[in-house]
Protein backbone atom coordinates (compact mmCIF):
# COMPACT_ATOMS: atom_id res chain seq x y z
CA UNK A 1 0.00 0.00 0.00
CA UNK A 2 1.42 3.36 -1.00
CA UNK A 3 1.69 6.32 1.38
CA UNK A 4 -1.05 7.99 -0.66
CA UNK A 5 -3.41 5.08 -0.07
CA UNK A 6 -2.65 5.12 3.63
CA UNK A 7 -3.34 8.84 3.81
CA UNK A 8 -6.65 8.41 2.01
CA UNK A 9 -7.57 5.57 4.27
CA UNK A 10 -6.76 7.64 7.34
CA UNK A 11 -8.87 10.53 6.01
CA UNK A 12 -11.81 8.18 5.42
CA UNK A 13 -11.45 6.75 8.92
CA UNK A 14 -11.45 10.26 10.39
CA UNK A 15 -14.63 11.05 8.44
CA UNK A 16 -16.32 7.91 9.77
CA UNK A 17 -15.39 8.75 13.34
CA UNK A 18 -16.64 12.31 12.91
CA UNK A 19 -19.97 11.14 11.51
CA UNK A 20 -20.34 8.64 14.32
CA UNK A 21 -19.76 11.45 16.83
CA UNK A 22 -22.47 13.56 15.15
CA UNK A 23 -25.06 10.83 15.58
CA UNK A 24 -23.88 10.02 19.05
CA UNK A 25 -25.75 12.43 21.31
CA UNK A 26 -26.62 10.32 24.35
CA UNK A 27 -30.25 9.34 24.91
CA UNK A 28 -32.07 11.49 27.49
CA UNK A 29 -32.31 10.01 30.97
CA UNK A 30 -35.75 9.34 32.41
CA UNK A 31 -36.59 9.59 36.09
CA UNK A 32 -40.12 9.41 37.48
CA UNK A 33 -42.14 9.71 40.66
CA UNK A 34 -45.75 9.83 41.85
CA UNK A 35 -47.31 13.24 42.56
CA UNK A 36 -50.65 15.00 42.06
CA UNK A 37 -52.26 11.56 41.86
CA UNK A 38 -50.35 10.73 38.71
CA UNK A 39 -47.01 9.57 37.37
CA UNK A 40 -44.55 12.36 36.67
CA UNK A 41 -41.57 11.70 34.44
CA UNK A 42 -38.55 13.88 33.80
CA UNK A 43 -36.58 13.38 30.59
CA UNK A 44 -33.23 15.06 31.03
CA UNK A 45 -30.61 15.51 28.33
CA UNK A 46 -27.00 16.58 28.69
CA UNK A 47 -26.70 15.72 32.39
CA UNK A 48 -24.96 12.96 34.29
CA UNK A 49 -26.77 10.36 36.34
CA UNK A 50 -26.18 11.92 39.75
CA UNK A 51 -27.35 15.35 38.59
CA UNK A 52 -30.44 13.77 37.04
CA UNK A 53 -31.35 11.97 40.28
CA UNK A 54 -30.82 15.10 42.34
CA UNK A 55 -33.08 17.00 39.92
CA UNK A 56 -35.75 14.32 40.20
CA UNK A 57 -35.64 14.54 44.01
CA UNK A 58 -35.90 18.35 43.98
CA UNK A 59 -38.87 18.40 41.59
CA UNK A 60 -40.58 15.55 43.43
CA UNK A 61 -40.25 17.38 46.74
CA UNK A 62 -41.78 20.55 45.27
CA UNK A 63 -44.66 18.61 43.69
CA UNK A 64 -45.49 16.85 46.96
CA UNK A 65 -45.51 20.22 48.70
CA UNK A 66 -47.76 21.80 46.06
CA UNK A 67 -50.13 18.82 46.20
CA UNK A 68 -50.67 19.50 49.89
CA UNK A 69 -50.81 23.29 49.47
CA UNK A 70 -53.35 23.25 46.64
CA UNK A 71 -55.56 20.29 47.54
CA UNK A 72 -59.13 21.55 47.38
CA UNK A 73 -60.60 19.27 50.04
CA UNK A 74 -57.88 18.30 52.49
CA UNK A 75 -56.66 20.56 55.30
CA UNK A 76 -53.91 22.84 54.02
CA UNK A 77 -53.59 26.35 52.59
CA UNK A 78 -56.33 25.92 49.95
CA UNK A 79 -58.48 23.46 51.90
CA UNK A 80 -58.55 25.85 54.86
CA UNK A 81 -59.53 28.78 52.63
CA UNK A 82 -62.36 26.74 51.13
CA UNK A 83 -63.61 25.72 54.57
CA UNK A 84 -63.62 29.36 55.72
CA UNK A 85 -65.40 30.57 52.58
CA UNK A 86 -68.06 27.89 53.04
CA UNK A 87 -68.68 29.24 56.58
CA UNK A 88 -69.06 32.73 55.12
CA UNK A 89 -65.89 33.98 56.81
CA UNK A 90 -63.24 36.25 55.39
CA UNK A 91 -59.87 34.53 55.22
CA UNK A 92 -56.27 35.39 54.37
CA UNK A 93 -54.65 33.33 51.62
CA UNK A 94 -50.92 32.69 51.85
CA UNK A 95 -48.96 34.67 49.22
CA UNK A 96 -48.40 31.63 47.02
CA UNK A 97 -52.11 30.80 46.91
CA UNK A 98 -53.03 34.46 46.39
CA UNK A 99 -50.71 34.51 43.39
CA UNK A 100 -52.30 31.34 41.99
CA UNK A 101 -55.77 32.87 42.31
CA UNK A 102 -54.64 36.17 40.82
CA UNK A 103 -53.17 34.35 37.84
CA UNK A 104 -56.24 32.18 37.24
CA UNK A 105 -58.84 34.95 37.42
CA UNK A 106 -58.04 36.78 34.16
CA UNK A 107 -57.89 33.44 32.33
CA UNK A 108 -61.30 32.48 33.71
CA UNK A 109 -62.67 35.85 32.62
CA UNK A 110 -61.12 35.63 29.14
CA UNK A 111 -62.58 32.15 28.66
CA UNK A 112 -66.05 33.44 29.50
CA UNK A 113 -66.07 31.24 32.61
CA UNK A 114 -65.58 28.00 30.67
CA UNK A 115 -62.35 27.53 32.60
CA UNK A 116 -63.38 28.35 36.15
CA UNK A 117 -61.55 27.21 39.32
CA UNK A 118 -64.64 28.28 41.30
CA UNK A 119 -66.68 25.17 40.42
CA UNK A 120 -65.22 22.88 43.09
CA UNK A 121 -68.64 22.17 44.59
CA UNK A 122 -69.90 20.94 41.20
CA UNK A 123 -66.81 18.75 40.79
CA UNK A 124 -67.59 17.25 44.18
CA UNK A 125 -71.28 16.69 43.28
CA UNK A 126 -70.10 14.47 40.45
CA UNK A 127 -67.55 12.78 42.70
CA UNK A 128 -64.57 13.77 40.56
CA UNK A 129 -62.73 15.05 43.62
CA UNK A 130 -62.32 11.48 44.85
CA UNK A 131 -60.29 8.50 43.68
CA UNK A 132 -63.40 6.66 42.50
CA UNK A 133 -66.00 8.96 40.90
CA UNK A 134 -69.55 7.85 40.28
CA UNK A 135 -71.11 5.31 40.28
CA UNK A 136 -74.09 7.45 39.16
CA UNK A 137 -74.62 11.10 38.18
CA UNK A 138 -75.92 13.41 40.93
CA UNK A 139 -79.66 14.06 41.28
CA UNK A 140 -80.90 16.68 38.78
CA UNK A 141 -82.20 18.77 41.72
CA UNK A 142 -78.69 18.97 43.16
CA UNK A 143 -77.30 20.17 39.82
CA UNK A 144 -80.16 22.70 39.52
CA UNK A 145 -79.41 24.05 42.99
CA UNK A 146 -75.77 24.57 42.01
CA UNK A 147 -76.80 26.19 38.70
CA UNK A 148 -79.15 28.56 40.56
CA UNK A 149 -76.19 29.85 42.58
CA UNK A 150 -73.70 29.40 39.67
CA UNK A 151 -70.68 30.28 41.80
CA UNK A 152 -67.46 31.15 39.97
CA UNK A 153 -64.05 32.54 40.79
CA UNK A 154 -65.36 35.97 39.73
CA UNK A 155 -67.55 35.87 42.87
CA UNK A 156 -64.44 35.90 45.03
CA UNK A 157 -63.80 39.31 46.57
CA UNK A 158 -60.06 39.76 46.75
CA UNK A 159 -58.45 42.56 48.70
CA UNK A 160 -54.75 41.76 48.49
CA UNK A 161 -54.49 38.38 50.18
CA UNK A 162 -57.81 38.72 52.01
CA UNK A 163 -60.60 36.65 50.49
CA UNK A 164 -64.34 36.72 50.98
CA UNK A 165 -67.45 35.67 49.07
CA UNK A 166 -71.20 35.96 49.40
CA UNK A 167 -71.69 32.62 47.67
CA UNK A 168 -71.38 29.76 50.09
CA UNK A 169 -71.25 27.29 47.18
CA UNK A 170 -68.05 28.86 45.90
CA UNK A 171 -65.36 26.24 46.32
CA UNK A 172 -61.95 26.69 44.71
CA UNK A 173 -60.51 23.72 42.83
CA UNK A 174 -57.44 24.26 40.67
CA UNK A 175 -57.58 20.83 39.05
CA UNK A 176 -57.45 22.38 35.56
CA UNK A 177 -54.61 24.73 36.38
CA UNK A 178 -52.34 23.52 39.17
CA UNK A 179 -50.62 20.90 37.02
CA UNK A 180 -49.67 23.54 34.47
CA UNK A 181 -48.28 25.82 37.16
CA UNK A 182 -46.41 22.87 38.68
CA UNK A 183 -44.83 22.02 35.31
CA UNK A 184 -43.61 25.62 35.04
CA UNK A 185 -42.18 25.39 38.56
CA UNK A 186 -40.42 22.13 37.70
CA UNK A 187 -38.78 23.64 34.63
CA UNK A 188 -37.64 26.62 36.75
CA UNK A 189 -36.15 24.26 39.36
CA UNK A 190 -34.28 22.34 36.66
CA UNK A 191 -32.93 25.59 35.20
CA UNK A 192 -31.71 26.63 38.64
CA UNK A 193 -29.89 23.31 38.88
CA UNK A 194 -28.12 24.10 35.62
CA UNK A 195 -30.22 21.76 33.46
CA UNK A 196 -31.16 23.33 30.12
CA UNK A 197 -32.67 20.40 28.19
CA UNK A 198 -35.67 18.65 29.70
CA UNK A 199 -39.25 17.48 29.45
CA UNK A 200 -41.46 17.48 32.54
CA UNK A 201 -44.30 15.09 31.79
CA UNK A 202 -46.99 15.16 34.49
CA UNK A 203 -49.35 12.34 33.60
CA UNK A 204 -49.30 13.10 29.89
CA UNK A 205 -49.32 16.89 30.13
CA UNK A 206 -45.87 18.25 29.56
CA UNK A 207 -43.55 21.19 29.29
CA UNK A 208 -40.24 21.10 27.47
CA UNK A 209 -37.13 23.21 27.23
CA UNK A 210 -33.98 22.92 25.18
CA UNK A 211 -33.13 19.99 22.95
CA UNK A 212 -33.32 16.21 23.21
CA UNK A 213 -29.69 15.87 22.16
CA UNK A 214 -28.58 17.82 25.21
CA UNK A 215 -27.08 20.74 23.30
CA UNK A 216 -28.50 23.66 21.32
CA UNK A 217 -29.13 22.77 17.69
CA UNK A 218 -29.15 19.01 18.27
CA UNK A 219 -32.29 16.83 17.93
CA UNK A 220 -35.57 18.56 18.95
CA UNK A 221 -37.86 16.88 21.49
CA UNK A 222 -40.41 14.67 19.73
CA UNK A 223 -43.83 14.21 21.25
CA UNK A 224 -46.62 11.80 20.37
CA UNK A 225 -50.24 12.87 20.91
CA UNK A 226 -52.25 9.86 22.02
CA UNK A 227 -55.26 8.61 20.09
CA UNK A 228 -58.33 9.39 22.27
CA UNK A 229 -59.79 5.90 21.99
CA UNK A 230 -57.31 3.44 20.52
CA UNK A 231 -53.90 2.73 21.92
CA UNK A 232 -51.02 4.41 20.25
CA UNK A 233 -50.22 7.75 18.84
CA UNK A 234 -52.45 9.89 16.59
CA UNK A 235 -49.87 12.46 15.57
CA UNK A 236 -46.34 13.53 16.38
CA UNK A 237 -44.90 16.95 16.97
CA UNK A 238 -41.42 18.39 17.30
CA UNK A 239 -41.20 20.99 20.02
CA UNK A 240 -39.46 24.30 19.66
CA UNK A 241 -37.46 25.22 22.73
CA UNK A 242 -39.75 26.12 25.60
CA UNK A 243 -43.21 24.82 24.71
CA UNK A 244 -45.87 23.01 26.69
CA UNK A 245 -48.40 20.50 25.35
CA UNK A 246 -51.57 19.95 27.38
CA UNK A 247 -54.53 17.75 26.51
CA UNK A 248 -57.94 17.52 28.12
CA UNK A 249 -59.69 14.28 27.21
CA UNK A 250 -62.93 12.60 28.19
CA UNK A 251 -60.95 9.35 28.64
CA UNK A 252 -58.81 10.66 31.50
CA UNK A 253 -61.29 10.43 34.38
CA UNK A 254 -64.78 9.11 33.90
CA UNK A 255 -67.36 6.59 35.00
CA UNK A 256 -69.88 4.74 32.88
CA UNK A 257 -73.46 4.66 34.12
CA UNK A 258 -76.17 2.86 32.17
CA UNK A 259 -73.99 2.72 29.09
CA UNK A 260 -73.16 6.40 29.11
CA UNK A 261 -69.76 7.93 29.72
CA UNK A 262 -69.67 10.70 32.32
CA UNK A 263 -66.28 12.40 32.23
CA UNK A 264 -64.61 14.91 34.53
CA UNK A 265 -64.59 18.03 32.32
CA UNK A 266 -67.69 19.81 33.56
CA UNK A 267 -69.52 22.59 31.73
CA UNK A 268 -70.42 25.32 34.26
CA UNK A 269 -73.34 26.34 32.02
CA UNK A 270 -75.11 22.96 32.20
CA UNK A 271 -73.60 21.60 35.40
CA UNK A 272 -72.88 18.41 33.46
CA UNK A 273 -69.94 16.89 31.53
CA UNK A 274 -69.21 19.03 28.48
CA UNK A 275 -70.58 17.58 25.25
CA UNK A 276 -69.23 17.63 21.72
CA UNK A 277 -65.49 17.23 22.25
CA UNK A 278 -63.53 14.08 23.01
CA UNK A 279 -60.09 15.65 23.35
CA UNK A 280 -58.48 19.07 23.06
CA UNK A 281 -54.73 19.63 22.77
CA UNK A 282 -53.13 23.03 23.29
CA UNK A 283 -49.53 23.96 22.52
CA UNK A 284 -48.31 27.17 24.16
CA UNK A 285 -45.11 28.54 25.70
CA UNK A 286 -46.81 28.82 29.13
CA UNK A 287 -47.80 25.48 30.66
CA UNK A 288 -50.34 27.01 33.06
CA UNK A 289 -52.14 28.81 30.25
CA UNK A 290 -52.05 25.66 28.09
CA UNK A 291 -53.63 23.73 30.98
CA UNK A 292 -56.47 26.22 31.52
CA UNK A 293 -57.03 26.63 27.77
CA UNK A 294 -57.29 22.87 27.13
CA UNK A 295 -60.20 22.76 29.59
CA UNK A 296 -61.86 25.94 28.30
CA UNK A 297 -61.67 24.84 24.65
CA UNK A 298 -63.01 21.40 25.52
CA UNK A 299 -66.01 22.93 27.29
CA UNK A 300 -66.55 25.37 24.42
CA UNK A 301 -66.87 22.37 22.09
CA UNK A 302 -66.68 22.10 18.28
CA UNK A 303 -68.82 25.22 17.76
CA UNK A 304 -67.08 27.65 20.08
CA UNK A 305 -63.49 26.57 20.59
CA UNK A 306 -61.87 28.83 18.01
CA UNK A 307 -63.30 32.00 19.55
CA UNK A 308 -62.23 30.94 23.05
CA UNK A 309 -58.74 30.07 21.79
CA UNK A 310 -58.43 33.54 20.25
CA UNK A 311 -59.65 35.17 23.47
CA UNK A 312 -56.99 33.28 25.45
CA UNK A 313 -54.19 34.06 23.00
CA UNK A 314 -53.87 30.42 21.92
CA UNK A 315 -53.01 29.96 18.25
CA UNK A 316 -52.01 26.29 18.35
CA UNK A 317 -54.81 23.91 19.28
CA UNK A 318 -56.56 20.76 18.09
CA UNK A 319 -60.05 19.53 18.95
CA UNK A 320 -61.34 16.04 18.24
CA UNK A 321 -65.13 15.86 18.20
CA UNK A 322 -67.40 12.95 19.11
CA UNK A 323 -67.77 12.02 15.43
CA UNK A 324 -64.00 11.65 15.21
CA UNK A 325 -63.58 14.86 13.24
CA UNK A 326 -60.19 16.54 13.70
CA UNK A 327 -60.25 20.33 13.92
CA UNK A 328 -56.99 22.26 14.09
CA UNK A 329 -55.75 25.81 14.02
CA UNK A 330 -53.66 26.42 10.93
CA UNK A 331 -50.55 27.07 13.02
CA UNK A 332 -50.74 23.63 14.64
CA UNK A 333 -51.85 21.79 11.48
CA UNK A 334 -48.61 22.87 9.84
CA UNK A 335 -46.55 21.18 12.55
CA UNK A 336 -48.39 17.92 13.23
CA UNK A 337 -47.39 14.69 11.51
CA UNK A 338 -50.29 12.25 11.24
CA UNK A 339 -50.17 8.51 10.67
CA UNK A 340 -53.65 8.84 9.13
CA UNK A 341 -55.22 11.43 6.85
CA UNK A 342 -56.61 13.94 9.36
CA UNK A 343 -59.33 14.98 6.91
CA UNK A 344 -60.82 11.46 7.08
CA UNK A 345 -61.26 11.68 10.84
CA UNK A 346 -61.36 8.86 13.37
CA UNK A 347 -64.95 7.64 13.03
CA UNK A 348 -67.62 7.66 15.75
CA UNK A 349 -65.91 8.02 19.15
CA UNK A 350 -69.01 7.78 21.35
CA UNK A 351 -68.56 5.21 24.15
Amino acid at each position, binding site marked *: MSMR*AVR*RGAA*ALAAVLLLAACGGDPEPQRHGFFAFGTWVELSLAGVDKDAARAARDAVSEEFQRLHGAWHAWEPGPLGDVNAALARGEAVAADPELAELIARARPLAAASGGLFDPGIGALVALWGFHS*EAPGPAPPAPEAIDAWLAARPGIADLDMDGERLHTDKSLLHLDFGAFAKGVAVERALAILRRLGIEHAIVNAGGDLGAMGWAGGRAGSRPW*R*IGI*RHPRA*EGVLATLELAAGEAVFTSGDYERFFIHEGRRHHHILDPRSGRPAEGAVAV*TVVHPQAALADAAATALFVAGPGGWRAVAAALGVDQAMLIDADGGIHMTEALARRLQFDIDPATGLGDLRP
Partner: protein
Amino acid sequence: MKGWGLTGGDLLVLLLAAVLVGGLYGRYWTPASEAGAALITVAGQAPRQVSLDRSRDLQVQGALGPSRLELAPGRIRFTESPCRGKHCIHQGWLSHGGGFAACLPNRVAVQLLSRRRDLDAVNF
Protein backbone atom coordinates in the same frame (compact mmCIF):
# COMPACT_ATOMS: atom_id res chain seq x y z
CA MET B 1 -8.05 -5.33 -9.28
CA LYS B 2 -5.61 -3.25 -11.25
CA GLY B 3 -7.95 -3.55 -14.26
CA TRP B 4 -10.70 -1.69 -12.29
CA GLY B 5 -8.38 1.14 -11.51
CA LEU B 6 -8.83 0.68 -7.76
CA THR B 7 -5.99 1.30 -5.35
CA GLY B 8 -5.68 -0.11 -1.87
CA GLY B 9 -6.85 3.25 -0.54
CA ASP B 10 -10.02 3.10 -2.66
CA LEU B 11 -10.80 -0.30 -1.24
CA LEU B 12 -10.27 0.99 2.27
CA VAL B 13 -12.70 3.86 1.59
CA LEU B 14 -15.29 1.43 0.23
CA LEU B 15 -14.85 -0.87 3.21
CA LEU B 16 -15.20 2.00 5.68
CA ALA B 17 -18.29 3.28 3.83
CA ALA B 18 -19.86 -0.16 4.11
CA VAL B 19 -19.06 -0.27 7.84
CA LEU B 20 -20.55 3.20 8.27
CA VAL B 21 -23.81 2.31 6.50
CA GLY B 22 -24.09 -0.89 8.50
CA GLY B 23 -23.43 0.98 11.72
CA LEU B 24 -26.04 3.66 11.00
CA TYR B 25 -28.54 0.98 10.02
CA GLY B 26 -28.00 -0.87 13.27
CA ARG B 27 -28.24 2.28 15.35
CA TYR B 28 -31.26 3.99 13.85
CA TRP B 29 -33.44 1.35 12.22
CA THR B 30 -35.79 -0.28 14.66
CA PRO B 31 -38.24 -2.95 13.56
CA ALA B 32 -41.91 -2.04 13.92
CA SER B 33 -42.73 -5.02 16.07
CA GLU B 34 -40.37 -6.39 18.61
CA ALA B 35 -41.21 -8.26 21.76
CA GLY B 36 -40.27 -5.22 23.82
CA ALA B 37 -40.13 -4.66 27.52
CA ALA B 38 -42.06 -2.85 30.21
CA LEU B 39 -41.01 -0.73 33.13
CA ILE B 40 -42.81 -1.47 36.40
CA THR B 41 -42.57 1.10 39.15
CA VAL B 42 -43.80 0.66 42.70
CA ALA B 43 -43.63 3.79 44.83
CA GLY B 44 -40.46 4.07 46.80
CA GLN B 45 -38.65 1.41 44.80
CA ALA B 46 -36.38 1.59 41.80
CA PRO B 47 -38.20 0.89 38.52
CA ARG B 48 -37.86 -2.67 37.35
CA GLN B 49 -37.65 -3.66 33.71
CA VAL B 50 -39.37 -6.86 32.62
CA SER B 51 -39.07 -8.53 29.26
CA LEU B 52 -42.27 -9.19 27.29
CA ASP B 53 -40.90 -12.16 25.42
CA ARG B 54 -43.23 -14.85 26.81
CA SER B 55 -46.56 -15.24 28.63
CA ARG B 56 -46.49 -15.23 32.41
CA ASP B 57 -48.07 -13.66 35.49
CA LEU B 58 -46.30 -11.31 37.82
CA GLN B 59 -47.31 -10.09 41.27
CA VAL B 60 -46.00 -6.85 42.75
CA GLN B 61 -46.54 -5.57 46.27
CA GLY B 62 -48.05 -2.05 46.18
CA ALA B 63 -49.01 0.41 48.90
CA LEU B 64 -52.41 -1.26 49.56
CA GLY B 65 -51.59 -4.83 48.63
CA PRO B 66 -50.66 -7.06 45.73
CA SER B 67 -51.32 -6.09 42.10
CA ARG B 68 -51.24 -8.82 39.47
CA LEU B 69 -49.95 -8.24 35.97
CA GLU B 70 -50.28 -10.47 32.95
CA LEU B 71 -47.33 -10.41 30.59
CA ALA B 72 -47.46 -11.70 27.02
CA PRO B 73 -45.27 -11.26 23.95
CA GLY B 74 -45.25 -7.52 23.27
CA ARG B 75 -47.99 -6.62 25.74
CA ILE B 76 -48.89 -6.32 29.42
CA ARG B 77 -52.00 -5.62 31.50
CA PHE B 78 -53.29 -5.36 35.06
CA THR B 79 -55.48 -8.32 36.01
CA GLU B 80 -55.96 -7.68 39.73
CA SER B 81 -55.44 -4.72 42.00
CA PRO B 82 -56.72 -3.82 45.47
CA CYS B 83 -58.18 -0.43 44.40
CA ARG B 84 -61.80 0.71 44.22
CA GLY B 85 -62.01 2.14 40.72
CA LYS B 86 -60.19 -0.68 38.86
CA HIS B 87 -59.23 1.82 36.16
CA CYS B 88 -55.92 0.04 35.82
CA ILE B 89 -57.70 -3.21 34.91
CA HIS B 90 -60.27 -1.55 32.64
CA GLN B 91 -57.45 -0.04 30.67
CA GLY B 92 -56.73 -3.48 29.27
CA TRP B 93 -53.70 -4.51 27.32
CA LEU B 94 -50.89 -2.08 26.68
CA SER B 95 -49.31 -3.02 23.41
CA HIS B 96 -47.93 0.23 22.02
CA GLY B 97 -44.67 1.82 23.02
CA GLY B 98 -45.15 4.54 25.59
CA GLY B 99 -48.48 2.96 26.63
CA PHE B 100 -49.06 3.55 30.30
CA ALA B 101 -51.34 2.18 32.99
CA ALA B 102 -51.23 2.81 36.69
CA CYS B 103 -53.04 1.78 39.81
CA LEU B 104 -52.67 5.11 41.58
CA PRO B 105 -54.18 4.04 44.94
CA ASN B 106 -51.77 1.12 45.02
CA ARG B 107 -48.97 3.26 43.54
CA VAL B 108 -48.05 0.77 40.86
CA ALA B 109 -47.24 2.07 37.37
CA VAL B 110 -46.56 0.14 34.19
CA GLN B 111 -45.10 1.65 31.08
CA LEU B 112 -44.45 -0.19 27.88
CA LEU B 113 -41.00 0.80 26.75
CA SER B 114 -41.24 2.60 23.50
CA ARG B 115 -40.94 0.64 20.31
CA ARG B 116 -41.11 4.06 18.73
CA ARG B 117 -37.73 5.18 19.91
CA ASP B 118 -38.30 8.35 17.93
CA LEU B 119 -40.65 9.67 20.64
CA ASP B 120 -39.42 11.35 23.80
CA ALA B 121 -42.84 11.57 25.46
CA VAL B 122 -46.51 10.86 24.82
CA ASN B 123 -49.10 13.53 25.51
CA PHE B 124 -52.65 12.55 26.53
